[in-house]
């Protein structure tokens, strides 16, 4: 019974809550194939009109950054305050630019 080969693969589900917005990750589910995954995503994650579109992707197809590398990867952006508009103090009369 716990033979993992007989288990349906895992899929990640992304839902667009309404037209014009991004698809957002909202959870995962098991399904035998892509079509079933989309149908089940509808039933599981949009029972209250939470979405107008769903994407599914096999979980084993996702490549993620290594959490162990988090600091090395993301900290270099920390001291680059000049990438933000608020870094530049302009005269009041033109500050709305």
């Amino acid at each position, binding site marked *: 019974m716990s033979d993992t080969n*007989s288990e349906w693969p895992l899929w990640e589900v992304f839902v667009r809550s309404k037209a014009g917005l991004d698809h957002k990750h909202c959870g995962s589910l098991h399904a035998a194939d892509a079509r079933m995954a989309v149908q089940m995503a509808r039933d599981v994650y949009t029972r209250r009109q939470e979405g107008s579109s769903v994407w599914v992707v096999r979980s084993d197809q996702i490549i993620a950054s290594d959490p162990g590398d988090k600091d090395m990867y993301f900290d270099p952006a920390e001291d680059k305050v000049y990438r933000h508009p608020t870094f530049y103090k302009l005269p009041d009369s033109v500050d709305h630019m």
Partner: protein
Amino acid sequence: MYTQAMDTLREEGGQPVLRTAEEAALQQRFDQRIDAGDFIEAKDWMPENYRKTLLRQISQHAHSEIVGMLPEGNWITRAPTLKRKAILLAKVQDEGGHGLYLYAAAETLGTSRDQMLDALHTGKAKYSSIFNYPTLTWADVGAIGWLVDGAAIMNQVPICRCSYAPYARAMVRICREESFHQRQGYDSLLVMMKNGTEAQKAMVQDAVNRWWWPCLMMFGPPDDQSPNSAQGMRWGIKRVSNDTLRQKFVDAAAQQAAVLGVTFPDPDLRWNEESQHWDYGAIDWSEFWRVVGGDGPCNRERLADRVQAWEEGEWVREAALAHARKSELKEAA
């Protein structure tokens, strides 16, 4: 400070307590993150005992949602009106969804859903003892919504802030859906109490009498008899103590019962002006432990139903997978 439980766990397992400097550093960073109120994600390092405790709690929670579909499912075909039937179907479907969110959260800890189900079916894993009570009349369905889901909400809201992020995210989604469960139950009882016959009103009171004490037990043993609670609190898995949640539930329910026009089967239940809370009588914990131990009114029936559903669905699971593999091959050719 979190290492203590981890070390006892290893000692209990008969293994020597060995730790490399690297492991000790990871442990220290983990402790700091917990203390800072940070969330832990699936791929982050975590102590073995933290992982084990979470897996036990989340899978037990998932099993409870799935087994919890059975007592109410019992009434879907016999709901008194089409409206109540549609509502009950939607609620039971929600509970199935809750089970699914939670199995997915538990799977991130490295155990497959089939392995968790296997543990349930072989009796190794537990589920909430409340679902081992029978639903004898239609009023039980309303009482479950009002009281059982009400107690579940009290329990679940603090878990939305659990330190393990996949669990916390699943709980946020679940809590958003639970409110309707409690309200539809109360609404259904209210209709019977306002417009029902004397016999229907008596049916509501009878259901409330039977569900009240088991609901109070849902919060778990009293704080002074709950040895693992302290560790759970330190890890940010548990946020509020059993007795605090139970008191909160009693306070809310007492007020709701008055509006509904029913009483609870507890002669000691009374408002305490000094504490500004409702006092309640002693809970019969021997009943709780008996039901947890497998000897409740419906333990055998519930488990047998789950095992039957799993076994009878096996050919469907196999066929769907075989079909998917065949189609993949065809596409590749």
